[in-house]
């Protein structure tokens, strides 16, 4: 499965951390800003390049040297939150 990144947010460095801030007419709540960690940054970078989720997870397992189940859980948590905020959508 692939995810599509919406154009209603942008990322920028704030005090050394990557943050997501909303953009455009659909902005209702400033609370939709969030700071993301290195894992989130890693995932988002690949999603925006159109990489398939299976390939992202495989690359994460190798890069972070962690168990596949933990990586999958992290991936799921991050993408679910991003979907909830309207920043990602699923592409079948």
């Amino acid at each position, binding site marked *: 499965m692939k995810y599509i990144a919406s154009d209603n947010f942008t990322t920028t460095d704030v005090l050394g951390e990557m943050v997501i801030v909303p*953009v455009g007419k659909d902005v209702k709540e400033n609370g939709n*800003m969030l700071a993301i960690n290195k894992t989130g940054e890693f995932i988002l970078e690949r999603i925006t390049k159109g990489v398939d989720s299976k390939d992202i997870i495989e690359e994460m397992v190798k890069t972070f040297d962690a168990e596949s189940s933990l990586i999958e859980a992290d991936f799921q948590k991050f993408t679910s939150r991003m979907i909830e905020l309207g920043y990602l959508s699923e592409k079948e």
Partner: protein
Amino acid sequence: MKTICISVANITIRMSAEEPLDFSDAGFRGFVIASADEADICISVSDATGDTHSEADRESWIVGDCRDMEFSENIWEIGVTKNGENYIVVDSYRHDSEYSWVKMRYKGNCGKIQICRRPQQSPTIDPYIFPTINLLISNLLAKSNGFMIHSSVVDDGGKGYLFTAVSGTGKSTMAKLWKEKGATIVNDDMIAITNGENTVEAHNIPMSYYNQEPRKIALRGIFLISQSPTNFIRPISGATAVLKLAANTIYHPFTKEDSTRHIKSVAESVQHVRLFELGFKPDTDIVDEVRKLNL
């Protein structure tokens, strides 16, 4: 040609019209200055008629509303047109208001406001129609490394403290507690922030039915407040702190550059002024506890 100039949070606005201009809202009069030869923005004000004021050439926009049942009820829209003009439209849906709609367009340091007044209003034009100028100030601040934030600010013997929270959490209560202990309230609802080289200043802005003079104070502490059974003050920092503060700011991010610029402005304030989470019960003990921080 009649002219009136105001200065708000270091932004100077010069308004001109064929007819006499005056502010029916006392909240604005304190911000009038004698003249502004080099205003940040010059706006021509004129009457308009008709029912329609749609912006057919709009490119990106944000819609909001003000539902202060006592003073005003309106829908506003702020946006940019395809040729890069900024625009603000305010529609009143109260039949006893002095106008039915207001439209402002501006680009660079020039702009115009058209006001569709209801019949039999006063012979003067009031160029301040809430929230038109507030939206303009918010937009101009955003372009000059500042922002507006829901907050109260007090001046405690030259030290400025800002208390921010969502509505109903205690911003005004906090300001009153400080007043009881001898501080001056800069404003208890909405504040404009300007980032200087090494300082962050908080300014009051014109508000409906606030009879006030312009005030500003350099900030020494920023507090994200909440009600609590016991008082506590905890320092916070980093990106999460910036985002918590930004959540109470007012901004209209039409583009990625707007959003980035805004969050960088908030981060700059946090780099110069310490940020705390503060829980308080409504008595003046909290004032003493903040003073003990010796910021």
